[in-house]
């Protein structure tokens, strides 16, 4: 009986106290979120490590959950293939007829290339090794264009490695955990890829801006690009192997060229991670900032030190 009034006094005191505590909690959480944002700006590496650790926990769950999604996508593709079998056959027959001609040309060129190579004895590009991985998460949202892969450090994945599909370059590895990695796509705001226009050999940097078609930047002023030109990686900076197909020029306006990547984003299921290292790190640092001509001259002068002597040419 005596409990009644005491309880009401208690609740009369407790209710505002609780609302104050709630409001304080809300402010505390907001402050934490803003602190995280500032930390993310100033201590990028630390935040990235924490994120990799958290993704390590989510990766096995995503891997299991994504398996049926991938199967369903395969099913849909197979159904589409089934419907278009006749049309595909027709197109493929035409293509085979065309490619047989190309095969002859390619064989001749291969022969010629081999004999010329034997005369010159140039330094070979180091061969790339492959790691295959499956896409387990289509992440990114508004500001980032990235996907999660189910291969990590234990498979030999390292930050900076190039990632390709059968069609062309997809992007590069930016975060690596023990069993998962994040692939930054070509189209991301932070993606920069040294490329070359295949025909004219003009160098440029392919810069993503979160749109579907990244931009060609640092193109020489006298360079002429026109829609339909193929763009491949140049191999400069030693991160991407040279000659990987990237895309074709889709539009040129007011000195701005945009690229349609070869990659079919809607069919990004399996990717190939390239373990490629063109030059030792120290070499890149030393050569950084040198012009193309000096670089070439230097690499010729250094040829003996790499074990391939010019004198050995018959």
């Amino acid at each position, binding site marked *: 009986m005596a409990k009644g009034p005491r309880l009401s006094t208690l609740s009369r005191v407790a209710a505002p106290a609780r609302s104050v505590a709630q409001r304080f*909690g809300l402010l505390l959480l907001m402050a934490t979120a803003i602190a*995280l944002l500032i930390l*993310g700006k100033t201590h990028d590496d630390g935040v990235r490590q924490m994120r990799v650790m958290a993704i390590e926990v*989510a990766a096995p769950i*995503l891997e299991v959950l994504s398996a049926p999604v*991938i199967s369903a996508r395969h099913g849909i593709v197979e159904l589409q293939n089934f419907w278009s079998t006749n049309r595909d056959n027709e197109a493929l027959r035409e293509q085979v007829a065309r490619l047989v001609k190309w095969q002859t040309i390619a064989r001749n060129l291969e022969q010629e290339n081999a004999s010329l190579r034997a005369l010159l004895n140039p330094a070979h590009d180091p061969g790339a090794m492959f790691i295959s991985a499956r896409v387990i998460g*289509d*992440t990114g949202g*508004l500001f980032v264009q990235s996907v999660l892969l189910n291969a990590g450090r234990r498979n030999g994945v390292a930050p900076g490695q190039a990632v390709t599909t059968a069609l062309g370059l997809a992007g590069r590895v930016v975060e690596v955990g023990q069993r998962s990695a994040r692939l930054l796509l070509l189209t991301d705001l932070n993606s920069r890829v040294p490329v070359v226009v295949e025909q004219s050999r003009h160098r440029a940097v392919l810069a993503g801006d979160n749109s579907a078609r990244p931009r060609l930047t640092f193109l020489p002023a006298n360079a002429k690009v026109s829609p339909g030109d193929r763009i491949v990686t140049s191999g400069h900076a030693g991160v991407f192997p040279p000659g990987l197909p990237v895309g074709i020029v889709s539009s040129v306006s007011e000195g701005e060229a945009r690229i349609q990547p070869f990659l079919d984003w809607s069919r990004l*299921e399996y990717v190939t991670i390239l373990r490629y290292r063109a030059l030792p790190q120290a070499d890149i640092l030393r050569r950084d900032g040198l012009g193309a001509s000096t670089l070439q001259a230097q690499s010729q002068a250094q040829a003996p030190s790499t074990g391939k002597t010019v004198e050995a040419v018959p």
Partner: protein
Amino acid sequence: METHLAHRVANFARAGIPITISVCLVLVATLPYGLPKSSLAAPILALISVYYWSVFRPELMPAGAAFLIGLMVDILSGGPPGLNALLLILVHWAASGQRRVLAGKSFAVSWLGYLLIAAGAAVINWFFASLFYTTAIESVPLVVSHAIGTAAYPLVALFLARMQLLIGQG
């Protein structure tokens, strides 16, 4: 005694439904569907879920939970850390504060509420993302994302309402 315990466990599980659903929605939305704009699904679904529970069962969606769900979206996306956490706290605060207006009235009112609160969130999103990247972020993707979210709201809310029935009034 045993039934009493089972009852309490069941109650506890039911109380966890809003947070569990939100986490599951984010995880499922992250899977690689290969559809255009599908990477926008996770932040949109998180926003709708936090809004819905903050309006209809705010006691089961505390601010701390909204924060953690936002943090999860941030970690998966690789975007500015803490940005979605901040947005979802603000959405929770706005939605639970106005729940007398938003809940109990017709469905259209809660939909309109979502439209306004999510629009506010998009503006704040733009502001903080621009600060983070120290450049004026393109606003078109934000508008597109807001439009998709508003269009998807009725369907997602219908699903969440079904889930709400599982919780009951207890």
